[in-house]
């Protein structure tokens, strides 16, 4: 067995250089990808904040709806509730305002205003 056979590398020099270049590119890509994904986790923070805001709005809405009790119901279908509760209700779900503006079903035209009466008076 000759020495030259023993000293022959398993991977030729060119292929070893090529693997080195690939490793260099792979490291560069990995660093950039890691930096992006780490930065992108801030999007998760934003998403959490959006979820918290959504939960807060739902909570406000349910509390405000709690003010619409039978005892506060007027004869024409509107409610009289405190102004701050009305504001909270509208802020939580503006659609409620439109819903409450719908004409009454007694055949006549619904009065355009007021939707809420000042319950503080």
């Amino acid at each position, binding site marked *: 067995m000759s020495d030259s056979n023993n000293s022959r590398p398993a991977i030729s020099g060119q292929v070893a250089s090529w693997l080195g270049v*690939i490793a260099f*590119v792979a490291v*560069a*890509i990995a660093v950039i990808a890691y930096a*992006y994904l780490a930065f992108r986790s801030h999007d998760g923070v934003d998403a959490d904040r959006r979820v918290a805001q959504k939960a807060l709005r739902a909570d406000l809405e349910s509390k405000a709806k709690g003010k619409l009790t039978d005892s506060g119901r007027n004869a024409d279908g509107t409610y009289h509730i405190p102004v701050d509760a009305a504001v909270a209700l509208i802020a939580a779900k503006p659609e409620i305002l439109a819903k409450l503006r719908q004409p009454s079903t007694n055949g006549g035209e619904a009065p355009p205003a007021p939707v809420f009466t000042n319950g503080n008076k």
Partner: protein
Amino acid sequence: MSQEHSSSRSSVSRIDASVSLPVRLFIISSILWLLVASVLSLIVALKLQVPSFLSDCAWFTYGRLEVLQRNAFIYGWASNALFALNLWIMSSLARFELKSSWLPVLGGLVWNLTLTYGLIQVLLGQLNGFALLEMPKEVAPAMVVAFLFAALWPAVAFARRPTGNVFVSQWYIIGATFVFPVITVVAQLMLLWCPTLGVMQALVHSWFYQNLILLWLGGSALSAIYYFIAKESGRTISAYYLATVGFWTYFLFASWTGPATLLGAPIPVWLQSVGVVAALMMLVPIVITAVNFFGTLAPRSGIAQSWNNTTLRFVLVGTVSFIVSALLSVVFSTRSLNALVRFTEFTQAQEHLAVYSFVSMVIFGAAYYILPRLTGSFWPSAKLVHLHFWASTLGSLLFVVAGLNHGWAAHGRTDFAVSALPGLVAAALLFVGHFAFALNAFGMLTAEEAPSSRRSY
């Protein structure tokens, strides 16, 4: 002296032989893709003129065919050809004999098969909304791996060069080689795999697009211009000391020009300004490359002599196109002028000037130089060479004019159908030119090698 000369020639011949297989594969693939893209370009141009043409089948709708044509041209024709070009130039400059040619061949095969699969998916309607990233996202990993196999060998050649001397072409090849995998992976990641939100997508896409065109395609083509101008004219590059500045400023500013293509878009104004400043700063590498190229060719009737040299003639057209295209980009990146053209076909004309008139013409010129050295044969027909040159040059010029005309049409100044006609004629001219080139190239590649004619071109 003669012995040394003979030894040098023998060495060059061995180098050519060592890269012959992968370079042939890349060139053959690129020519086939060029023919596909040419036919598609003709159909697309025809559909602009006659919208009902092939409109009954969803496969042949304008949206899919246009995407198909663009991807076949960039990834099929230009990228394959640049694999060959970069490998051959770098091997020659670095005196590199490729021993594991099966690796780039394998990479080339995977690249082309993946591209074929991706384009079939596009034809079936599975496409994304980002230009040059339209193919399904599962295609990208395979293409990046194929690129690593096929196109990193110039970097290996550079790393193993026997001397410490570095020529400017080598810088551009190395830069372009590393740009492609990085921008592709980052863009794929940020647009398709883990997409960013909102306007960031447009920013990332503009960054990817500009880098692909200017750095991967443009950088590789610039390396070829430096190589062939010096080689074929037998002159040293004029003001060579400026080339370093040109290289670094080109790679620095070109990669920042993306936001300049988004002027008027709902992105922060400061980002748009960064793009505009980068686009204006591109004047530095443009002036330097112009000084390098024309300073080398212009003295002692060099340009007239270049006209009689097939390679230099194509390279010269490519060089002029590069300068014009880059200057147009600078001028029309200013806000007031950009507002006039931003939604017109003018931008298409600019892109055509960069991708075809600049990059493709340089590739053609390089092919006319490289193929005889690989095959040991002459080009079969000089008439086909002339036909190719004039059809490509005139077709390209007409395409740019057609783009401007389209822009005017979009502003309601002319009838749209009328303005589409020059584009159709240009596409037909380009098809004729490409067919002539393919006929000549395949005639040469399939011809028997004539030992006596070797190196007598």
